[in-house]
């Protein structure tokens, strides 16, 4: 039941928000609502723990002649993704208080619509429902970027839309094809999809379609070109939603059904996918070094980081898959933290250009410390959240191929290079005319960032807690590939 509440509550909040007119009330309601959703997620987590992995299933018939049912539930992987989503939304909403958006009721309403769609994606146990939520998530994301975005937003969001939409179409076609291969009577239920009998050729085609859809979302090189533009031009809130949560849909989709459904093709084409992903790591890192816009730099760094996750997923080793799941959570937290910090700097200085900044640490020590902590998390310092995932991913890659691991491991160096460069040029050194009068973090910004910092250390110090939640389910996924 909690699973259904988790989906319906954001929807209800979203609708109620549309009826409120006063901006102050909208904000307060949005924050309270997002915290309530997070509360429900925590309750679901506790229930999941106490009932020993009972999946919190909810099933209702819908279009039963077609074998489509409203089947929602959560295993450990879903649960972590839901926790991530519901944790990040309040952080994102808090950080949005820095700006005064036009038409605030629509803006916050869309955020909750998106939250609902994301939770739907992570909890649906039915292929068609998954697809519907997958598409649904795109709409609020597109509106947020297109309406409240920056320069050149129409052209860029249009590109973003087309990219992801094309991918989705392929997925839909593959899904329908797969449906007809399920045992009679056909069903979109995941269990049925897993049970479909496919010839190797069919596996290859379905794999190709799924891979395209998921790879665009993640994004994997060379399908990434929508991403830097979109992150850069989107409003801070949009970038956070996209990078923090939405791209995880792609990796989640790969783990959830691409691997179980077409594992033969996955194994066969794994080297190609891994090479693409690893190329992306080096390629994006090298480009990130050259960036002057902080948001753009983080966007490219994100391509590198998720490239490592994607590479790890395709090794199909236990360590890599475990690492992929925990790294999705860590990456979400870290990149949202980075965007919040960048947003705070931009709000004060009206620029994101690294070359215009400098010496901020002198004027805003709290900002500098928080930025440093998030940065250390994202360059995977041991005992912060980025480390264990990166280590497990590299361990899995190493078991697959030493050469792949060595090249992918370059991310350890590259991330330090561009992140420290950015930190050096913005935070350290002497102040200039632009940063002279910069003020330190406000209470609201601290309220958004302290939970992020806490999570960075919590996951870093006690990764076992998070890995244990997903272990049985990851083993299950691997079992499918045997």
């Amino acid at each position, binding site marked *: 039941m909690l699973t259904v509440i988790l989906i319906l509550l954001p929807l209800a909040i979203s609708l109620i928000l549309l009826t409120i007119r006063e901006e102050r009330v909208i904000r307060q309601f949005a924050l309270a609502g997002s915290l309530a959703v997070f509360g429900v997620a925590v309750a679901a987590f506790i229930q999941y723990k106490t009932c020993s992995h009972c999946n919190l299933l909810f099933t209702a018939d819908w279009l039963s002649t077609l074998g489509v049912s409203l089947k929602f539930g959560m295993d450990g992987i879903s649960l972590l993704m839901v926790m991530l989503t519901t944790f990040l939304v309040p952080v994102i909403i808090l950080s949005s208080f820095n700006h005064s958006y036009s038409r605030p009721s629509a803006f916050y309403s869309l955020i909750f619509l998106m939250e609902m769609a994301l939770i739907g994606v992570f909890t649906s146990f039915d292929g068609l429902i998954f697809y519907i939520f997958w598409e649904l998530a795109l709409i609020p994301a597109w509106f947020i970027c297109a309406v409240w975005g920056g320069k050149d937003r129409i052209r860029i969001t249009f590109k973003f839309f*087309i990219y992801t939409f094309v991918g989705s179409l392929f997925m839909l076609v593959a899904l329908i094809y797969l449906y007809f291969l399920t045992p009679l009577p056909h069903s979109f239920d995941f269990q049925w999809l897993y049970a479909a009998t496919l010839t190797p050729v069919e596996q290859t085609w379905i794999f190709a379609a799924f891979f395209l859809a998921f790879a665009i979302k993640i994004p994997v090189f060379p399908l990434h070109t929508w991403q830097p533009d979109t992150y850069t031009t989107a409003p801070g809130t949009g970038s956070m939603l996209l990078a923090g949560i939405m791209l995880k849909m792609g990796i989640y989709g790969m783990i959830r059904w691409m691997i179980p459904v077409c594992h033969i093709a996955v194994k066969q084409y794994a080297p190609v996918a891994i090479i693409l992903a690893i190329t992306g790591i080096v390629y994006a890192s090298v*480009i990130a070094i050259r960036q002057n816009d902080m948001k753009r730099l983080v966007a490219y760094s994100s391509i590198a980081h998720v490239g490592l996750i994607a590479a790890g997923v395709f090794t199909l080793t236990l360590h890599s898959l475990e690492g992929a799941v925990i790294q999705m959570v860590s990456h979400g937290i870290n990149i949202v933290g980075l965007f919040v910090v960048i947003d705070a700097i931009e709000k004060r200085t009206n620029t994101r250009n690294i070359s215009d900044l400098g010496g901020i640490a002198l004027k805003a020590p709290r900002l500098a410390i928080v930025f440093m902590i998030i940065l250390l998390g994202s360059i995977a310092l041991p005992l912060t959240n980025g480390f264990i995932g990166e280590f497990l991913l590299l361990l899995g890659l190493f078991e697959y191929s030493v050469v792949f691991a060595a090249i992918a491991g370059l991310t350890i160096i590259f991330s330090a290079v561009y992140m420290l460069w950015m930190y050096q040029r913005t935070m350290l050194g002497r102040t200039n005319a632009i940063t002279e009068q910069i003020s330190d973090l406000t209470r609201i910004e601290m309220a958004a960032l302290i939970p992020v910092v806490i999570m960075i250390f919590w996951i870093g110090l006690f990764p*076992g807690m998070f890995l244990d939640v997903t272990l049985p389910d990851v083993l299950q996924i691997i079992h499918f590939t045997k």
Partner: protein
Amino acid sequence: MVDFSYTVWILLIPLIMFVVVGLFGNRFKPLVSGIAGTAGLFVMWILSLITAYKYFFVLEKAADGSFQKLLAFNMRWLNLTDTLHIDMGVLLDPISIMMLIVITTVSFMVHVYSIGYMDGEKGFMRFFATLSLFSFSMLGLVVATNLFQMYIFWELVGVSSYLLIGFYYTRDSAVAASKKAFIVTRFADLGFLIGILMLSFSTGTFDFLTLTGANSPAFSSGTGILFLGLSTMTWSMIFIFMGGAGKSAMFPLHIWLPDAMEGPTPVSALIHAATMVVAGVYLVARLFPIYIFAAPVALDVVMYVGAFSSIFAAIIACTQFDIKRVLAYSTMSQIGMMMFALGVSGYGGHEGLGYMASMFHLFTHAFFKSLLFLGAGAIIHAVHTNVMNEMGGLRKYLPITHATFLIACLAIAGIPPLSGFFSKDEILAAGHDKSMLLYIVESIVSGLTAFYMFRLYFSIFWGKETHYHHTPHEASKTMTIPLMLLAVGALLAGLIPFSMFVSSDRMPFHSHIEMGIAIPAVLVGLIGIFTAMLFYRKETSLPDKIYNALGGFSKAAFHKFYIDEVYLFITKKIIFNYISRPIAWFDRHIVDGAMNGIAYVTNETSEGIKRFQSGQLQHYALVFVSGVILFTLLFTYLLTN
């Protein structure tokens, strides 16, 4: 059985200090954080001394008469799979206890000294908080029970070093130096990580007790040829050594160390002289059984890299004028000698002389080198310059600094009966047993060491007296007392019968001074000192003449053999301009362009065919997808009926 579980507090105290001072330090006067940090270190120092006493004198030895290795504390941190798990704990054996003593002693002295040295600095609290973080990381590194724990703390040490080098963060050179140190060592750490993965993959464990025990899986596994005729085990140990070479500033990964001198001088004394930079030596010593039994080729690499680094750095040290940089190159040179000693060592008893000598030198070096740095700090404090040409005749003004600095110089030059004599003598003896050529090289290094140290000494304390703006005066007691205490260490540390405590197989043995080695070594040292005296005691034109006579060579040495320029060329010119920039262009115009092209063609085609004049691709796409869905649903409906 003697209980050692309290040793975990040696780790926890600095961690608690870090958190408490970091979070609440600004609520009190700055001095409070300094005193709290120092008090914490005092407790850790006492605990370490007690541990050493109990371990070496109270605890009974193993059946064969060797010192035991014991797990004083162990905790399962992470279960990866049923077989692979990661532990955190405290491993006590002779070398980890020796490191505990070195770290807590030097750190305690540096803390006391810093209260005076850093007085009035903005960020006094931040300084002590970061020092606590460093102490925690460094101690966690040396007591690590397994490679993984070592790697974790290894990285944390790197971050503390980064934060401390960049302490004066408004100064561009300091910021650049801190970043350089972090990135160069991180590059080395990638090698370390790959080495760890390879080693643990072939042996199935991270645990030191298993890996270096009598029946280690490392001896039997990973023997297959991997690449270039070397076995997997050899490669993994070479990669692991790469990590050690990065931290210990071995050629060619040494470039960060001289720049790291931008940090506050107490930091240079603690981190970049006595503790962190010897982590690489410690790492090789920790895994020594694997090196010697399973990867002798890797041990040869250690030997050659160590020997080359020691002579390379010694030559550069003779040409530098910044006193801290001279000391930095001297550190690199001395660490090279320690690596060399490990590289020539065998296993067990006298065979393992090199191992013992290396650890001995690490121990004595910590005292005299931190003393030199703290002395340099006192000098810089007094005259406000780092450059030795701008000093001279300071012996009158800084009597205590002068006396202690002289002791340290004599110790590092290897003059008996000071500490450096004993440890250096053992290194040369071990080298002599292995290779005549390298023995000669190391003897030259010893001579050069004596020369450049006394060049420094005479230029600072003798020579022509410069006109100072303010009359220099001796530093406060909090700074001179640590100097005097460390001087006692530098004087006497060599008298400890070290081989009775530390040896390659943990079995005590007697080592003695061989006159055939000791006499030439002392003579070489005296020649170095005498030459320096001739050149620098009174101002002469002799050094310039020799410098000019050597022409290109001395110029190259002065420019540190252009290694920095080579790196700069590779990173800035090649990677930045010739790789990064074109790829960024490629991404924007080719990859993105191709994708736009596909979209454009699709759009044009569809418009051509359909003559659909709405002109909006997005509208078209929506219609298209609704069509697909409707069609499919209809199709399915018909099919199922």
